């Protein structure tokens, strides 16, 4: 490849990435403002009592699905956090656990829990299969209870997931619009005890949460595996088994719902928290799975593109999102290194204007601002989203760009090889034991409700 061709390809890749990422982030910030919310919304949220403030008048029945495989370390607080509301039913899907997940869940129950035990060889077929089994039970219960599918909301939670206090009061009104089929909550990492865990929190809380609001403006917010709400009538329209065997069954469901014309939303004034993974090896394993699912979902671009129910902007957004690993991450993993080589070998030419320490310092600063502009924006966003975070930590997280690049490079190539080798095995993320402090204090259920939006808190907007 000649240098002009390299420059052109690099320019196109950078500009595509900037156009998509910058576009949804900008749209997200606009939409955030339009909704009258402050960026630090939920940054001080309390978790574990999602039913606080729920109106007696809302017509919805909520069914939580919690797929579990050896979740004894975390299941009890989750059960306690999701029960306690007479219009909610919790279904723990014990997918053939070897430990006491089912027994521990039952022990924490206050009468609204159903444990659905799956045995081998039907068990351990992946999260999608477990969720489909849980949904079959939901359908049976809904029919027995004479409930309307359009008024039944199914919420998928991870076994370590906790919904923020008052989450349902913020989420359920979205379903008053009959076109809304799904909603995904922003995700917070609970155990932020190392830079690796802070990094995951930064990706979810500062970057993904804002871009999700931008995507929701186009009605195409993506669904994730934790804090995923969907209307039963929408799931029924997808088929008997709405969650596919894909490695990212949540993304697959989001595409299917969007293609059928359902609006996909998010709600920044509620959130869900979960454990992060505490080692780089596990993080890479998890991200390879996500990348593989994301890349495989690329085959559905045509389906989204042809959908008469999707707006043009929605079709463009879905296509852009699904193309990112193919047209940005893969080529960028090569172009990035050629670019560095070019930068180093052409440094005398590029810095030919340097004739003293003043121009050298000025040139260095301009080059830094040019090369690390996304990092500076990330630092700003991190400071705004996480109230009270140390400035140095936000600066370091914002400048994780290099680390993020290399995690993406490793994962996207590994995922590509797995696709080519037709390997689609699913390795579940291992949970960590948590200290007592992470448990939900029982007496907290009786305390006065705090406003979940944070809009009326004393702290000023930053």
């Amino acid at each position: 490849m000649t240098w002009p061709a390299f420059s052109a390809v690099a320019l196109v890749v950078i500009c595509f990435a900037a156009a998509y990422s910058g576009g949804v982030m900008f749209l997200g910030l606009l939409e955030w403002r339009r909704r009258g919310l402050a960026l630090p919304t939920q940054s001080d949220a309390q978790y574990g009592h999602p039913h606080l403030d729920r109106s007696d008048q809302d017509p919805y029945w909520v069914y939580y699905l919690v797929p579990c495989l050896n979740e004894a370390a975390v299941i009890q607080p989750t059960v306690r956090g999701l029960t306690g509301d007479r219009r909610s039913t919790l279904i723990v899907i014990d997918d053939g656990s070897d430990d006491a997940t089912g027994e521990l869940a039952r022990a924490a129950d206050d009468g609204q829990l159903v444990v659905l035990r799956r045995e081998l060889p039907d068990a351990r077929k992946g999260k999608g299969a477990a969720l489909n089994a849980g949904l079959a039970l939901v359908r049976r219960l809904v029919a027995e209870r004479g409930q309307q599918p359009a008024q039944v909301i199914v919420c998928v939670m991870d076994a370590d997931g906790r919904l923020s206090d008052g989450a349902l009061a913020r989420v359920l009104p979205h379903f008053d619009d009959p076109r809304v089929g799904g909603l995904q909550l922003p995700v917070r990492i609970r155990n932020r005890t190392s830079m690796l865990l802070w990094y995951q929190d930064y990706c979810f809380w500062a970057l993904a949460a804002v871009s999700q609001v931008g995507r929701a403006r186009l009605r195409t917010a993506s669904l994730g595996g934790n804090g995923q709400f969907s209307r039963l009538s929408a799931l029924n329209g997808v088929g008997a088994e709405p969650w596919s065997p894909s490695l990212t069954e949540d993304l697959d469901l989001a595409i299917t719902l969007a293609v059928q014309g359902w609006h996909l939303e998010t709600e920044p004034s509620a959130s869900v928290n979960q454990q992060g993974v505490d080692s780089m090896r596990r993080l890479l394993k998890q991200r390879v799975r996500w990348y593989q699912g994301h890349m495989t979902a690329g085959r559905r671009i045509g389906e989204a593109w042809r959908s008469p129910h999707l707006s043009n902007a929605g079709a463009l957004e879905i296509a852009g999102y699904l193309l990112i690993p193919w047209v940005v991450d893969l080529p960028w993993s090569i172009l990035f290194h050629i670019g560095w080589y070019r930068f180093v070998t052409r440094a005398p030419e590029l810095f030919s204007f340097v004739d003293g320490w003043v121009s050298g310092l000025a040139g260095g600063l301009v080059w830094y601002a040019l090369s690390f502009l996304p990092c500076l924006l990330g630092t700003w966003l991190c400071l705004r989203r996480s109230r009270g975070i140390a400035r140095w930590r936000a600066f370091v997280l914002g400048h994780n760009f290099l680390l993020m690049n290399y995690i993406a490079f490793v994962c996207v190539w590994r995922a590509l090889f797995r696709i080519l080798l037709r390997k689609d095995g699913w390795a579940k993320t291992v949970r960590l034991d948590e200290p007592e402090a992470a448990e939900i204090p029982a007496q907290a259920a009786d305390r006065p409700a705090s406003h979940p939006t944070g809009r009326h808190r004393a702290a000023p907007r930053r």
Partner: protein
Amino acid sequence: MVSAPSVFGTPGRRSRVARGFRAPVSLVLLAAGLALALENSWFRVLEAGTAAPLVGFSTSSTVSVRPGTETIFLGLYTPRVFGLTVTPECTAALPIAALLALAGVLTLTGRFPLARILFGLLAATSGIFAVNQFRITMIGWAAHTWGAAGYGWAHATVGSLVVLAGVSAAIVAFLAICGGGAFRSTRRALNPSTPAPPADPPDGAPKGR
């Protein structure tokens, strides 16, 4: 299959004539993109020719471009004569070629009205061309004012930022124009005065995909 109630209706109906034009227009756009990527010296000559008066105006100096070449000489008849060549790395031809190819693919898929794609393409290519003209003018002005140091600043640092921002904005503008009808529809859907669609009918047993 149950699908969501929609206020959008079906996408706009394209006329048969426009549909018939799509394949040849797409081929022309793709071929033009490929040709521009492979052979763009004529385009660089054009860029130099159009930028020369702007450079002359901004530097208040005498400027000359020898016919058929892509080099602008500025500051003629002064001790500060400077030559600027629009190289294959500095031309707007390659990002425009990529945009032509993208427009060709979008035309072929039939999702967007042809007129919108062509209008968007015209706007975005004009934008990229204008941004590069601005960049060349800025480099000429900086070189004339501060000599080689000014050239270094304007060419490698500020110029790169200008091009990145300009091309990204052009891509966003192109896609926004292509999907513009949908943006209007989305706004209408958000308007509370929009009559709500009928509630989703309760359905019984799940249906197959």
